[in-house]
């Protein structure tokens, strides 16, 4: 099952739900499917582990990442590049906005309200049930409400991103899938896709899922580990 997404896609979710890793891998997935893809790193909240960390690797694949000016890349200043409004007004075939966590992380969307108004957009909430505050449907819906209030946008779908990083088991993936399926029913929001780490893929029975699966090749890794070379599995 192919992931079917184009236009402006805004990736939101609670803090640490895995938005950036999803965003990078989704960009690669869509690029490989032949779409022209751009990403804006709008994580003005998180000081480390942001999309900008993977900028060079994405550029090699022909994916443009819009980040703050170079001299501010490692700043903890909330800098919103004016280029972002431009890329919303003239979107690529797929324009991905990687937001910061929680309601605080999407405040900036309200500031981009003029650029976004009248456009068809997808706002997708990333959910990892192994994170605090989103281990219950109630918790996820509370975050959804808070994000919708702060961004003044409606969430239109769910991305299941159940993982414990290196310690994720096949069981965890299935448990996480059941969780987001339930959440999808309870909220009425469609489940757009779930994620599976590349190293787990061989053990996964793809028929288990009724939604598409996004392969994750981890990019945001601590310095003692190596990231998997992007698009290695797709080529």
């Amino acid at each position, binding site marked *: 099952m192919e992931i079917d997404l184009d236009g402006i896609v805004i990736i939101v979710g609670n*803090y640490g739900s895995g938005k950036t890793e999803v965003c990078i891998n989704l960009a690669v997935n869509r690029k490989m499917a032949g779409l022209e893809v751009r990403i804006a790193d709008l994580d003005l909240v998180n*000081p480390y582990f942001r999309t900008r960390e993977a900028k060079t690797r994405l550029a090699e694949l022909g994916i443009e990442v819009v980040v703050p000016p170079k001299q501010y890349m*490692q700043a*903890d200043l909330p800098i919103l590049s004016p280029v972002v409004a431009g890329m919303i007004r003239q979107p690529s075939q797929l324009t991905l906005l990687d937001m910061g966590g929680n309601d605080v992380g999407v405040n900036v969307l309200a500031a981009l309200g003029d650029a976004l108004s009248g456009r068809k957009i997808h706002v997708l909430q990333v959910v990892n049930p*192994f*994170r*605090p505050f989103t281990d219950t449907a109630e918790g996820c819906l509370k975050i959804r409400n808070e994000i919708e209030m702060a961004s003044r946008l409606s969430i239109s779908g769910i991305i299941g991103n159940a993982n*414990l990083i290196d310690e994720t088991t096949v069981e965890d993936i299935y448990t996480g899938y059941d969780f987001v399926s339930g959440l999808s029913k309870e909220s009425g929001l469609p489940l757009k896709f779930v994620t599976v780490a590349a190293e787990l893929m061989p053990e996964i029975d793809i028929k288990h899922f009724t939604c598409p699966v996004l392969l994750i090749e981890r990019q945001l890794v*601590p*310095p003692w580990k190596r990231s998997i070379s992007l698009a290695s599995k797709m080529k």
Partner: protein
Amino acid sequence: MGKILMKGNEAIGEAAIRAGCLNYFAYPITPQSEVAEYLSRRMPEVGGVFLQGESEVAVSYMLFGASACGARVFTTSSSPGISLMSEGISYIAGAQCPAVFVNIMRGGPGLGGILPSQADYFQATKGGGHGDYRLLVMAPASVQEAVEMVMLAFPLAEKYRNPVMLLGDGLIGQMMEPVEFPDHLKSEPTNKDEWATNGMDTRGSNKRNLVKTLFLDAGKLNEHNLMLKAKYDRMKREEIRYELYNIESDYKALIVSYGTMSRVCKTAIDNMKDEGLEVGMVRPQTLFPFPENAVYEAASKESCKVVVSIEMSMGQMVEDVERCVKGKLPVKWYGKCGGDVPTPEEVVEAVKSFL
């Protein structure tokens, strides 16, 4: 409860709650603000105290006041904030009050940068504030270990009636790892009534308690300092913690490294092993008291030719390593402290260059 995925900073906050510390005062600073953000949600859930103070200076005294009346207290900050708190830390140590401080280190001096660093080693282990005091300093190398150390920090602070510091670098605070929380800590400090200003009615006594640091009489101040020294000597006997890595091999070089840096070193040691070069490591888990004998013994192995202190600073811990090796072997330093954590390849190259 199974494992959950947490950022180091969140896990530190949750661990404090599970250690029975429901009193948190703090001031925001990158890269540790997530502790305050997490606890501003969690403390109300558990009926605890969350207060954002007006400055790190004020926060250190909020801890002092609360601790002096018998409450379990903690705060978290990052390097420049710890400099400001150092004033209060000296008073808290002098007044013999338990408190836990977490430093999620960033680059310095001055504002430095927001990326990971270990450049506050001297500040944590040798002073920071004024006077003859010591902190018991623990350095976690993973989110799980941060949780365990936080839960250990409170009983230790109470055992010694002394501040305990958890020294992590920015990466420990920012990275996410799966964690499992131990059961809630049940222990309560038992001797509070002997010293805490918790109100005479509370302890049913007519004898008032006094928490102070002023000793105008030279003899009395000397006595006070001797008593503090006896506590620090006891820490040296009872609280040294460390981990040994690849120490059974006939290693040619010995690395001493802690925190995030030690994890990079482990990868480097594994890579060198694959190439046929054996390297051992002592990872101090307590930086004060420092694992003096462990370093000395590991450096005494016949195959070992050099000891290398690898740290994200311009060479601070290396002075302790030199002291422990007692001239038996050459002691070298390798490190970086701009925020880029040295890679395993860079560590391998550095170690080889010393052989």
